[in-house]
């Protein structure tokens, strides 16, 4: 028995090393670039989704002035925020001096001060998805207008006043709306209908901003997701297809006629439009090899034609496992692509120059999703 007691006490004393304080901030600063105090851009934020139920959404910042890439900006600036940034951060946007982070599975939009990252306010909106801005207002798409009402499958766009930071108006749109843009006193939002397969939505909803009513639905294609606008007022809308027989496509919608004017057989995972060029990457999955084939293409939005070749220099495609977020540096046209890898390990952020040659890479949070540039204050 003595033996047991001894063992027992040993077990207790050796293993009772539970640390009370698990809070720590990753001070492992990466420096991918030389400091540049002259830079037109102050830097960019990267919002990391984190896997669902893991509560691991996080915010990183690439600071051009110091050349440093810093992790966990939200946690740093708001250590006392219960639960932190939250579960699955889906989108980020900056308007004026405020930054808005849409945290999907935490049912909230965090409004932060762009400069300090400090929390200004939290706006609770269930199942919120994407955000855009127009004349002093933020517009937010949400998958369901009402939670738990069996007769209300449709989504909504909520209008948020960027001064009072409260929801001012709501309008019903199609089911499970995704990306949206505001242009010419109208909001265009891509409806997916993802909760009711195979009865996907096929339209882009048009909302008249002054009256805040849905005035039209433009017939486009099934299960819409990405929606970007070019300089001529053309919408580039991606359709995810039904994942089986109906393939993914890219549609061009003319906002003047509010009709589809062109279709590309291109499986768009994500895209960004810069300087009349849409940078698009597509992912195709092979059942047999279990591997993704990824292509990086450019599309001229003026001529609406796909340009030859990849925007990543040969050999560099293999660096990235799962491209997830994409952005073009408006100043030097560097290409940033985030790599979500297997979704359950920290991702990477790659920087390529405008010729697609590798410049640098840094480690991000889990599932780096979206890049938001920060301009120097005027």
């Amino acid at each position, binding site marked *: 028995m003595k033996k047991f007691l001894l063992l027992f006490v040993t*077990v207790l004393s050796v293993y009772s090393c539970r640390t009370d304080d698990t809070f720590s901030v990753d001070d492992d600063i990466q420096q991918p670039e030389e400091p540049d105090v002259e830079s037109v851009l102050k830097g960019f934020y990267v919002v990391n989704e984190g896997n669902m139920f893991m509560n691991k959404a996080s915010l990183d910042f690439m600071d051009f002035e110091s050349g440093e890439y810093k992790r966990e900006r939200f946690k740093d600036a708001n250590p006392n925020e219960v639960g932190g940034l939250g579960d699955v951060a889906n989108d980020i946007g900056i308007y004026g001096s405020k930054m808005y982070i849409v945290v999907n599975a935490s049912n909230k939009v965090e409004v932060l001060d762009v400069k300090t990252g400090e929390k200004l306010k939290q706006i609770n909106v269930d199942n919120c998805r994407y955000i855009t801005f127009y004349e002093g207002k933020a517009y937010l798409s949400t998958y369901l207008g009402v939670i738990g009402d069996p007769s209300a499958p449709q989504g909504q766009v909520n209008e948020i006043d960027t001064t009072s930071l409260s929801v001012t108006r709501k309008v019903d749109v199609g089911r499970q709306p995704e990306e949206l843009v505001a242009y010419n006193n109208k909001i265009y939002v891509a409806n997916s209908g993802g909760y009711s397969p195979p009865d996907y939505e096929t339209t882009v909803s048009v909302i008249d901003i002054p009256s805040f009513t849905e005035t039209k639905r433009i017939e486009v294609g099934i299960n819409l997701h990405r929606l970007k606008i070019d300089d001529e007022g053309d919408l580039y809308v991606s359709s995810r297809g039904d994942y089986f027989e109906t393939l993914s496509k890219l549609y061009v919608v003319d906002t003047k006629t509010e009709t589809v004017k062109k279709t590309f057989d291109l499986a768009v995972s994500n895209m960004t439009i810069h300087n009349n060029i849409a940078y698009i990457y597509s992912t195709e999955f092979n059942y047999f090899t279990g591997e993704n084939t990824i292509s990086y293409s450019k599309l001229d939005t003026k001529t609406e034609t796909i340009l030859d070749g990849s925007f990543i220099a040969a050999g560099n495609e293999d660096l990235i496992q799962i491209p997830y977020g994409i952005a073009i540096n408006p100043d030097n046209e560097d290409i940033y692509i985030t790599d979500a890898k297997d979704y359950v390990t920290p991702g990477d952020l790659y920087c390529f120059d405008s010729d697609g040659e590798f410049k640098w890479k840094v480690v991000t949070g889990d599932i780096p999703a979206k890049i938001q540039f920060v301009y120097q204050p005027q």
Partner: protein
Amino acid sequence: MSWLVYLVGAKLNEVRFLKYFYNSILIGCLACCCSVSVFAQEQDTISTTTTLKEVVLKYNNSQHKKHVSPAPVQTLDGATLTRLNSLNVADAIRYFSGVQLKDYGGIGGLKTVNIRSMGSQHTGVFYDGVRLGNAQNGQVDLGKYSLSNMEEVSLYQGQRTDLDQSANGYASANSIYLKSKLPDFENEKKYAADLTFKTGSFGLVNPSLSFDYRLSDKLAARISSELVSADGEYEFRYTNGSYDTIAVRNNADIKSYRLEAALYGNPSEKSSWQIKYYFFDSERGLPGAIVANRFERPQRLWDQNSFVQGEFRYEVSDSYFFVIRGKYEDVYTRYVDPEIVSLDGILDNRYNQKKYYTSIVNTVKLKPFWDVSLASDFEESTLDANLYRFAYPKRFTLLNALASNFFFKRVNLQLSVLSTTVYETVQAYDSADDFQKFSPSVLLNVQPFQNSDLRLRAFYKNIFRMPTFNDLYYTFVGNTFLRPEDSEQIDFGFSYQHANPSAFFEVQADVYKVWITDKIVAVPGANLFRWMMLNLGKVETTGVEVGLKSSLKFTADLDVTGMVNYTYQKSIDVTPGSNSYGDQIPYIPLNSGSATVMAGFKAFQLNYSFIYTGSRYSQKANIESNYVQPWYTHDLSVNYTFPFFENPMQVGVEVNNVLNQQYDVIKNFPMPGRSYRLTLNYTL
């Protein structure tokens, strides 16, 4: 059961020795306080040595079996189960080494086991010799199985080596055997009844009742029934060292009802049969993960399970016996998520599984030292679901196992080979390919010295788990090209048992290696919005398990039993090209263990247990943001038994997690702090 007698024969000296020890210790301790049934025997039959001897022998047999078994065995018997602070099988399993319990918290929370880091689908769970299955997700929720009707819970690494088992006894990498209570009559009484009422924290109300009735000398019946109702609410502390708040676990309520009715027949010395009906019905809230801004969730789950199973044994001659088993099972699950509203309204998924199973086992004694068994199982499983693009799969499984046991004086060897044939059909879309494989295993136990205190054991086993219906057919995620997930294990261990009239001491230790290949994992799929199941992972585990047990009898009124279990597991992701190559896999601590002290003094029993789980990672990458704190709980209980209207009444008080530690087993699923339970038990 002549083969068993033979097996025991080799150890007769020791058995006699142990019998002496247990005779003295059991009268003093077990009889007065361990289990109520034993108590009852002591009350009325203290002079009837026959009954007592049976108790003693039973106890001896399980100790002895552990000693000579080629496969590592751990067993908790009914008496110990009553003493340990356990409500369900999952609570009890925590006391075994090599086991990690995945516990999502609370009375209604899902509880599955991961044995030797292989994943819960590699564990076969057997109830009275017939496998409990879940073709849909391949895992059994052990929280569902109450201990109130359980006689014994055992864990076998590798495989059980008894030759009366069905072919599926050979078909998993490790097995948990649950043995339900049998009718138990004192003397000439025609009936026995047991009433238990438990209540305590989380709004728990848990009455249970069992009733045994002797219909004739050759026929007995038993009914066991139970209700569990709890609001499941508890306070928990939510902190990361910087923010710090207290919240209440919501939507964690459960209401469940269980009924078991069984008939036991013993038509002759040579034959026996039993047939059982089992019914379980529950409704529970799914409290979900605690994340920022979400402390309440509305998802609900209904679970209804019924089966009829039977067994017939016939000993045709001294050298031949057969066993026939059969089962029909129906599992209905309904999941409602009000947060997802489609054109059809709120998401309301219904799943219905049906299973038909038959088995025949023929065992022949070819030589006094050589038994051969051929077991054949046939099983048909179907799954219906109201899901979009659902395949409605049907799986036919044919298992044939040929096993051979050799018993020599100091060597005990089992060789077996299992043939698995699977045919799969679907009503829509694509089905998985048909499948056939042979799986061998070798298990050995050797007594190296003249003295029988030390026995060495070793085994090698190669087996696999089939992809589940969810892996294969779940809309968008399933992949019909999946291959089975393979496991290969080697184990070396020893058992040391030593007894004298007032003490018993035991050490069980094993070192092992497990290789999991073609591990079925979810990976980002066809595009950014889908996951897909693939045979991608490779895991290599090196482990050590040590179990110590000691019983001491100080005086006629005082005895103490202590148990210590320790597990070391290094489980490394060795998937080529993995982002976390070389990292410890999620939720496997390097170190874990338990310590238990059970003391009996006159009519009192005092029990203390300590459970420790070391730090783990919640996701593949071994980085700080995935770090999960170690946890350890201290549980205490006191039982007091006294005569009440001439029958034994037991009152028990438990305090669990005495130090009120706040911990997560699964990240973001907080576990309860200190909790209390009061048990009243009356036997007549």
